[in-house]
């Protein structure tokens, strides 16, 4: 039941968005013309499609983020029991992190952290 507020929040968010859309649909006048329907891009006529190719750097950063994201997920159960497991847990987590630091150093040395 401690998640009741999460549920309430989700419901409220949905209702707010839905009510806003519904109100503007019911109240706003609807007289479209080609100029109104054209996409607005800072007053400039739009160039090309809206679909653009992302820089590959985003993918590389996303990939590295995911690896260290998973690593961070393992830190939580370790941190919860840290006082019970003590030094052993510290050494075990140290080994885990050491291996991943190798990956970070590799990424650094290969220039994967540089923005191209």
């Amino acid at each position, binding site marked *: *039941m401690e*998640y009741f507020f*999460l*549920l309430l929040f989700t419901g409220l968010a949905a209702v707010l968005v839905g009510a806003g859309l519904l109100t503007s649909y019911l109240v706003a006048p609807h007289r479209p013309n080609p100029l109104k329907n054209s996409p607005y891009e800072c007053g*400039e*006529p*739009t*160039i*090309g*499609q*809206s*679909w*653009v*190719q*992302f*820089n*590959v*750097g*985003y*993918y*590389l950063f*996303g*990939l*590295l*983020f*995911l*690896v260290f*994201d*998973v*690593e*961070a*997920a*393992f830190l*939580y*159960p*370790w*941190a*919860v*029991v840290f006082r*019970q*497991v003590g030094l*052993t*847990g510290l050494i*075990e*987590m140290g*080994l*885990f*992190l050491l*291996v*991943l630091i*190798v*990956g*970070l150093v*590799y*990424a650094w040395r*290969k220039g*994967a952290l540089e923005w*191209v």
Partner: protein
Amino acid sequence: MIVQATHTVLFYLIAALALVMALSVVFSRKLLRAAIALMGVLALTAGLYILLGAEFLAGVQVLVYVGGIVVLIVFAIMLTRSSDLLEDQPTLPRALLGAFVGLVFLVMSSAVFFSSPFQADTSGAQVTDDTVAIGRSLLDYGPKGYVLPFEIISLLLLAAAIGGIVIARKIPAPSQPFTSGGDLPGEADFTQPRSQREEA
């Protein structure tokens, strides 16, 4: 009793929404919409985990799947050109291959489903403090501990990081900035907007 009923209602609500989202992942013809629907499926699965009392699993689901993997999928979609993906009429070999792969997956997952002895927990025990239990068995080096798989996971993650760098660095970086939208031939060579350019 009310709590129990609320749980049941919530379960069916979340499960139905997740099913709808999953269907729209499969049937949407626009890849980006499919990716957003996938995000919905994964977030709703986290909701199911919370209903089961597995808070840590729900947190990891949101942190890793919703926050990481879907973002990666969106980046991968945005790396490709849209025109390459609009394949309204798949060729016959592709359709056959797709059907074959789908069938194999169906057989595999139903084999797992039917060979698993699902037993209803009639004791009514609530799972509590699961993060503590996970942390203890993760770091336990006794016969019931998982410290070796835990350390091997770090090697797996290292391999994923290095492999990702090796593969992704080979893709030549596009010369245009990602905001330019240079889709016309030669458009990417221009650095000024069209209105400020002297037409050649």
